[in-house]
């Protein structure tokens, strides 16, 4: 693709370069170009999303019916006993599990660990962030390109540790590795340690990428770009990078302590060796709560771009959105206790409840700002914008259903139930994944120089929206009615809701398959993308699609804000029927 356009920039176009498959692979594997690294991250995280998605479907499949033992007489008149509802028991021998419940426990652990550590944490920052952060700043690359490549390799090594642990049978600790269960289960096996080390190694990748982005934002902004001229996507990724640098070392140390306890029997968390199991939960959530915002802040950044560009409006309350990103990043370090309301003293619980409500406010402000941005816009209902609107719908539900969890009285009922499962899927998936899908469709033409079939993509988006809500809205009711999470089996009265949820997961699968088809078709047969298909004003739309090596022919100078749609004529844009501002130099 696009080799003819930029023949003199062979290394800059992805599929150019010297002939020979090995040379081509080596060219990719040794690249320090942030764009290629971003693309490699994109494929890696999408592969992990696929694996995590398969395990999610397996979890939903097992939960179609409750497990029952049935006694009956066979034709020969002998009494036989069989079990119904253990739908994953076929995997028992392959995984070397003791029983069907353990198969289920390993698969939900797999789903959580893959989705959190290998997909959603690196998803937006490492793929879209890597590709677009330097370009949107007008820089040639990130501040430390070689370190960037190293981060990718560390990420891949971490994933390999995880996959290796899975191939050995997987672990049943839950992705949270709660002690003393995690330090005592499968005591004779290395699998658990491999999985813990996977998370430990992935942490380094996170820290290095975060450091790289922080320095890039501070040092490599184009001339004329002040802090408040940065696109809001950059603000989101910047706030994320700060959290990654500050919080990840804590989980690193904690996971190492876990390994020490398992291998050397040093009692840190296990009370039978003199440790404190709740200490682990504090350490763990001190990292893992801020990481919730590592997941969502870049998504919020993307949504700010999507809504502004596709409604051709200046974002409403730019500074409020930018500062609320930093505010969320700061407060996120003070609210970890709300994951452990049922394991802490009364005073601590009251304090953490109050602090948790604080974090709700900047999030609410962002949603108000996005909706206010639509006012008097010119709203194009294409796939990126639809995903932006889907985000506003699902993420609002995710945010509002968090309120009863921050409220102590109601949390005592809802904690560790399907209500919590539904809530965090509405924020993680309804928030981050929807934003990621929107961002991917928004920037796909820029990244690969190809357009995709808009109708097919819209169909995918609608299927994902319906499937997602069917799958997870039912789970709020399961939770309030008394269904605990992480259950391989359940009492009869919950079956109807479980069936609806599982059917929803199949529609969700269909939606993602449509997207996969659209993207593959686009890569191989897509129409050539113009430099600026949407009329964006941020710097990535000033260069070609895909961008040349080092991004720009000349260092760009920023003369307008990222959302001045009513004042500035977007570069390289052929708007067909859209009237451009008549006085382009008013800025």
């Amino acid at each position, binding site marked *: 693709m696009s080799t003819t356009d930029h023949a003199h920039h062979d290394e800059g176009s992805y599929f150019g370069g010297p002939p020979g498959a090995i040379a081509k692979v080596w060219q990719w594997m040794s690249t320090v170009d942030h764009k290629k690294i971003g693309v490699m991250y994109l494929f890696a995280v999408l592969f992990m999303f696929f694996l995590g998605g398969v395990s999610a479907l397996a979890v939903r499949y097992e939960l179609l019916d409750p497990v029952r*033992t049935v*006694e009956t007489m066979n034709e020969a008149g002998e009494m036989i006993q069989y079990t119904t509802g253990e739908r994953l028991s076929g995997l028992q021998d392959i995984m070397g599990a003791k029983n069907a*419940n353990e198969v289920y426990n390993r698969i939900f652990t797999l789903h959580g660990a893959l989705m959190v550590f290998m997909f959603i944490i690196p998803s937006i920052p490492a793929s879209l962030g890597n590709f677009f952060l330097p370009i949107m700043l007008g820089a040639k690359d990130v501040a430390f390109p070689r370190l960037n490549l190293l981060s990718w390799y560390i990420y891949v090594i971490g994933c390999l540790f995880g996959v290796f642990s899975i191939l050995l049978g997987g672990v049943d600790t839950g992705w949270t590795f709660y002690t003393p269960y995690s330090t005592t289960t499968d*005591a004779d096996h290395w699998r658990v340690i491999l999985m813990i080390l996977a998370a430990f190694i992935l942490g380094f990748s996170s820290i290095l990428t975060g450091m790289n982005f922080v320095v890039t934002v501070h040092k490599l902004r184009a001339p004329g770009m002040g802090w408040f001229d940065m696109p809001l996507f950059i603000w989101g990724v910047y706030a994320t990078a700060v959290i990654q640098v500050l919080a990840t070392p804590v989980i690193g140390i904690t996971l190492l302590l876990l390994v020490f306890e398992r291998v050397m029997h040093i009692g840190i968390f296990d009370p039978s060796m003199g440790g404190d199991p709740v200490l682990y939960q504090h350490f763990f959530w001190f990292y893992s709560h801020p990481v919730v915002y590592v997941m969502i802040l870049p998504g919020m950044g993307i949504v700010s771009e999507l809504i502004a560009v596709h409604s051709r409006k200046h974002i409403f309350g730019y500074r409020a959105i930018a500062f609320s990103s930093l505010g969320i990043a700061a407060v996120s370090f003070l609210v970890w206790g709300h994951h452990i309301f049922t394991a802490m003293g009364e005073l601590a619980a009251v304090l953490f409840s109050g602090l948790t409500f604080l974090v709700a406010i900047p999030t609410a402000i962002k949603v108000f700002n996005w909706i206010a941005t639509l*006012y008097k816009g010119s709203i194009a*209902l294409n796939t990126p914008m639809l995903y932006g609107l889907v985000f506003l719908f699902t993420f609002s539900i995710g945010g509002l259903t968090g309120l009863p969890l921050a409220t102590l009285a109601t949390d005592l009922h809802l904690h560790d139930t399907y209500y919590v499962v539904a809530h965090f899927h509405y924020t993680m998936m309804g928030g981050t994944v929807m934003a990621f899908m929107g961002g991917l469709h928004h920037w796909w033409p820029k990244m690969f120089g190809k357009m995709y079939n808009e109708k097919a993509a819209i169909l995918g988006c609608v299927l994902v929206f319906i499937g997602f809500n069917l799958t997870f809205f039912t789970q709020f009711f399961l939770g*309030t009615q008394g269904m605990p999470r992480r259950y*391989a089996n359940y009492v009869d009265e919950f079956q109807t809701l479980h069936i609806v949820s599982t059917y929803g997961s199949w529609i969700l699968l269909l939606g993602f398959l449509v997207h996969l088809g659209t993207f593959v078709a686009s890569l191989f047969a897509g129409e050539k993308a113009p430099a600026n298909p949407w009329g964006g004003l941020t710097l990535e739309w000033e260069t070609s699609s895909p961008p040349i090596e080092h991004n720009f022919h000349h260092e760009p100078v920023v003369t307008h804000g990222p959302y001045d749609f009513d004042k500035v004529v977007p570069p390289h844009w052929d708007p067909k029927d859209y009237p451009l501002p008549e006085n382009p130099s008013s800025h």
Partner: protein
Amino acid sequence: MNIPMLASTNASFTQRLIFGDHGASEAAAWSDGLFMMITWFSVFCFVILMTLMVYWVIKYRRRPGVASQPSPHHNLNLEILWTVVPSASMLVFFVLGVRGYAMKMVSPESAMELKVDAWKWAWKVTYPNGASSPETKFLSLKDNIETMQDGDSWVKQTGLEYPVFYVPENTAIKLRMNSQDVIHSFWIPEFRTKMDVIPNRYTGFAFDTPKLRDGETVIDTTSMMPIAGRDMWIFCAEYCGDEHSRMAATLRIVPQETYDAKIKEWGTPKDPIVLGESLYKTMCKICHSVDGTPGTGPTWKSGNGFGFGYEAALANGSSAMRDDNYIRESILDPNAKVVAGYVPSMPSFQGQLSETDIEGLLRYIQSLSDRDPNAGQTDQENQQADDTAGSDG
């Protein structure tokens, strides 16, 4: 700040749709009321936001030749308004939440204290007089009832039996909970409260049992007759391993007289085999079968290398005779001798079982076997073996 309307006695249709039942205590009904208040607030906000969004998306959809119209990039008054209103609402929820939390955590001085013990994978409740419930019931009414199918073949669905814990109606109860192994969580959905059960630390919460309403009956597990009572689920809510989803129990609210009679009955001495069998059903059955079915632990049925009086092949390559001392050690220090093919996952029952209980279990296990390894030993050997076992316990 008393808001009695939060604890209305008649749950609304929406409330019943959401919770499926009515909170069983005033604190539970109150927290449901608070949940509904937050939910209606959320629905209100959500509907406004989505209405604006959809309305503007339709009204301002892109039309040929029409550009977006300029409007202010920010509006201080509007932004102050939409910061202050949510903040004030949050403050209300926070304060009410703390109040409801206190209702669920604080109990009167006179409250009856129940001791809750947890381990992988069972619950045990000890009453103030030291007794604990030996009764169990099946998962659901459909279980253990034979049904005819296709004319002549019959099908019997068997669920697991779960322990039944009795509490008197209209009584303040507080729980003191402790785990023998990993972290569990004691959740009674109808009281809308759960608390983690942690090793090496006591946790707890409080609830008031409701007065029984007319016509509320349950099947008494000893007489199989209907008696006045109300059953509630108890679930483990903190992931604890293989049988996490079956770590359940039933809380049975009964009139004070029934409760007193049960407690008295459990306190009186029993035939050891009967005692052993009831302990088996409440504490051991989730891992050990008595019919040869494989489980997390070895079956107690004799034959095929299992059962009392049969030699056990151990994981370390040696073997051991399953006699009184072996069983005793396996109850008190389960990981000392692990049978080949099993992983050391049983918690110690040291301090959980009295000498009478252990004797009951021994005689029950023995009653399942056709062999008696103790028969050939002299009294003196038995005495020595007891001393050895006692010293490392």
